[in-house]
C-alpha cells in the first residue's frame, strides 16, 4: 500500500471537496482519498503514483497542489 500527502488551496465548501475527490477518483490505483476544507489531502493507493498523475487529474479543477 502506498500513501501520499499533499496540500491544496483552501476549499470553499463540501461541494469543492466532492468535486476534487471525483477528479482524483479517476486515477487508477487510488483506493482512498481524505481531504479536508483546509486542503490537506491524503491518498492511499495500491501502486506507486507519480505526482504528475495527480496534477493531471486536477488540471480542470480550481484547486491545484501547492
Amino acid at each position, binding site marked *: 500500500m502506498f500513501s501520499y500527502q499533499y496540500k491544496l488551496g483552501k*476549499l470553499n*465548501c*463540501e*461541494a469543492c471537496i466532492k468535486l476534487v475527490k471525483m477528479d482524483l477518483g479517476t486515477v487508477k490505483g487510488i483506493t482512498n482519498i481524505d481531504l479536508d476544507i483546509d486542503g490537506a489531502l491524503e491518498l492511499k493507493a495500491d501502486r506507486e503514483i507519480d505526482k504528475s498523475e495527480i496534477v493531471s487529474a486536477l488540471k480542470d479543477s*480550481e484547486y491545484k497542489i501547492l
Partner: protein
Amino acid sequence: MTKQLDLKISGMHCSSCEKLISHALHEIPGVKDVVISHKDGTGQVTYDSSLLTDTDAIVDAVRKDGYSAKITADKALKVADVKKTEIESVSSSSAMSPSMHMEKMKNDLDPNKRVHLSVGGMHCASCAAIIERSLKQVSGVKSANVNFAAEKASVVFDETKSSEKDLIEAVKKAGYTADLATDLSPEMERMQREKVISGYFNKFLFSLILSVPMLYFMFFDFFKWVPGRELLLSYVGIVSLILTIPVQFYAGAGFYKGMWASLKMKTFNMDSLIAIGTSTAFFYSIINYSIYAITNKTFIGLDGMKIPELYFETAAFLITFVLLGKWLEAKAKGRTSDAIRKLMGLQAKTARVIRSGITKDIPIEEVAHGDIILVRPGEKVPVDGNITKGSSSLDESMVTGESIPIEKNVGDGVIGSTINKTGTFEFEATRVGSETTLAQIIRLIEEAQGSKAPIQAFADRISAWFVPAVIGIAILTFLVWFFVLGATLSFSLLAFTAVIVIACPCALGLATPTAIMVGTGKGAENGILIKGGEPLESAEKIKAIIFDKTGTLTNGKPEVTDVISLGNFDEDDVLRISASMEKLSEHSLAEAIYAHAQEEDIELDEVLDFAAIPGLGVSGSIDGKNYFFGNRKLISDFADLDYSKIEKKIAKLEEKGKTVMILASKEEIIGFIAVADRVKATSKEAVDRLKNMGIEIYMVTGDNARTAKAIAAEIGITNVLAEVLPEDKAIEVKKLQEKGLRVAMVGDGINDAPALAQADLGIAMGSGTDVAMETGGIVIIKNDLRDVCVAIQLARQTMSKVRQNMFFALFYNVVGIPIAARVFISFGLVLKPELAGLAMAMSSVSVVTNSLLLKYFKPGKLNIISKVAPIIMTILFVTLFWQFAVISSRMAE
C-alpha cells in the same frame, strides 16, 4: 417535447456547487441542458418530457448532493428558444462565444446525412418523380429516392447547407405532405395509411352514389320500356349536370391538384391524363348544354327529348372507376409493407432493470449500456446483450428465422425482441436504441425497400416519355378523326378522351417497387436480408458461386486430431512449443492448438521475437532457441530445412482433409500437428441444390491443394481454388468474372469484405447480430448454407414477378390504345372513356395483387399460386377488356 424547469436552489457557496449539481442532473435520462447560478441561487433544466416524466427526480438529485431545491416554473420551450438556450449555456460554461459555438455546431453537422421521410398525397409514380425532382432542387441534396409504393423518401444531403425542415418544405411546396419517418410511430403510420384508404373509399362511394342515377339514364338509350323514361328523358341533361358537378370538382379535385403539382415542375403526370380526360368530357358537355339552353331558352329537353351531345356520365363514371382503382390499390399497397410493420411491432416497450440493487420497470428508451436487465419466462428480451446470470432457451425465430429455440448460458449473447421461453436470467445491455439487431434489420429493410432496382430505371425511362407521348397520340387521334375522316366533334373528342385514359401508365410505376417490397419482406421473415433491388436483380442472374471454406463451408472451429513427434522430442514437447507460439496468433488454427494444449494441461513457455508470417505460419524464440511453426513453405524458406522425409505422412493426413503444420527449429524438424475443421451438416445439401439450379460452384481457401480437394470432395465441389492468400480472394473472383460469369461470393461479411465487394453479389453468412457491419448485397443471419439457395430462389421469383407486372402494366396500354382510338371500329371494337378508366384501374390492381402473391413463397417449395394466378388474371382481364370493347361499341351505335 422540450421543456424548461426553473428551480430555486439554496445551500450553494461557489462554482463547485454549480458543477456538482450540474453533474448530478446530467445523469438523469432526458435532461438535455443545465444552467446553475450559485449567485442567484437558481437553476434551469432543459429536458425532454417524453423521457423524463417525473420532475421530482430533478429535485431529489439536487437534495441528494446536500442542497435544497424547489420548482418555480415548468414550461414548454419553442425550438428557437431551445437552440438559444443550448448556445448560451455552452458558451457560458466553456467560455465559447455564440459565434464560436455556431462554428462548432457547423463542424458537428454531417455532410452526408441520410434521412427518411414519410410522404403522403401521392397518386402515382409520376408524383414520386415530381417529389424526387423537388428534393433534388434543395441546396445540398446529393440523392433522393422516392418509393411510391412504400410512401417513403430516402434523401442524402449536406447538413451544412440545408436541414430536414427544408426537405419537408420542398415536398409541401410540390403539393404533397411529408414528415420525418422517425417522428411517426408504427401506430401513427398505420393511422395515416387507414386515413388515406378510407379517404379514397369515401370519395369513391360519394361518386358512385351520384353516378348511379346516370347509369339508369343510360338505359333510356337502349330500352324504350324502362320505367320513367318518358317522364324523365327531358330532364336527363340538367340532372346529370347537377350530379356531375360535385363528382368532377370535389371527388375529382385530387386529379387537378396532382396536375397542378406537375405543371409547376413543367411536366405532365398521370393525374394530368385523368384531369384532361374528365375535363374534356365535362366541359364539352357544358358548352353543348349552354348552347342548347341559350338557343332554346330552356334548361330541359324540348318535346320530351333528351338534350343531345351531353357526356356528363362519361366524366362521372371515369372519376368513379379511377377512384375505385385507387382505393383497391391503396389497400393492397398497405399490405406490401407488412414485413416492416411486423418487425417494428416486435419491439418491447419496457425493460426490467436492476440499478443499485433495486429492480424497476422503465421505458425501453431509458435503458443504458451496462444496465443489468432481468427477464422472466414468457417475456420479451428488450435489448441486445450478454447473459450475466442464469440460463434459458430463447425463441429467436422472429428475428433470425431460426425456428428451434436456442439454449443460452452465462456469456452468451441475446437479441432484443426475442422471446424468453423457459428460465429466468439477467443480462448486461450492450446495444440499445438504434444499435440493436432489430433496429439494424429494420433500417436495412427500409433502405432496401426505398432503393431502386436497375430494372426500375427502365420503367422510369418509359414513364418519362410515355405521358407526353400519350397526349400526343390522343391529339393525333382527334385530329385524324375530326379533320381527316370527317367524324363529328363528339366522336372525335370521345376517342381523344378514351386514348388519354387507357394509356395512363399508372401500373408501370408500381410494377417493380411492389414486388421488391414484398420480396425483401419475405426474405426478412426467413432471416435473409436483401439490401435492395440491385442485389435482387444480381442474385437472379448468378451463374457461379465461390464459397469461402473456413467458417462458411466448414464450422470454422478446427480441432487438433493428430500430434506427431520426431527425433528426441515427445508429443508434449511438440504441443508445448507450438501452443506457446500460437497463443500469440489470432488465426483459427492457432486457437485450436492453444485450446488443445489447455485441455492437455500443458504449461506454456514464454516466447520472444514472435512474428506472424501471413499465409505461412509463425516464428519465435523460446529459451534462446528459434522455432518455426507453419506450412511447408515456411519450413523450406525460413527454416531452410528439407521436409521430404515426412512428406508421405503429411500427404496421408491431408488426403483426409486435415491441415498439417510442421514444427521445426533451425536444426531439425521436431514434429507436426494435424488440425481438422469439420464440414457443416448443411453444406453438401446446399451445394447439391445450387448445382440443380444450374449454378457452378467453387471453393476458395488458403489451405494447401490436397486438403482443400479432400474437403471439397466431401461436399461435392470439383472447382477448387487452393493456397489463395486472404488478400488474393478478390482477384480469384475477378478472374471468374473475366470469363463472362456473373459471380456471387459467399463468406464472412467482415473478413472477406474485399472479395464480397468485388463479386457481382456478395452474400455475408452467419452475421448473427452485426448485420449493419456486413459487406454484401445479401446478409444471412443464420449460419445455414441452405439459405443461400433460398435467397436465390426468392430473387428469381421476385424478378419474375417484376416482369409479370411490367407485362400487366404495358399490355393494357399497348392493346388498349388502338381500340380506344377507334381504329377497329369497323370490327365492332370501341372503348368508351369510362370503361377505359375501369380497365386502367384494373391494371394497377392486378399489378399490386400479383406482387402480393409472393407472400406464398416457401423455401424449397414451388409457389403454385404465384405461378398460376397471373395466367388466370391475364385470361380474366383480356376477357373483361374484350367485353368492355363490345359493350362500348353497342353503346356507340
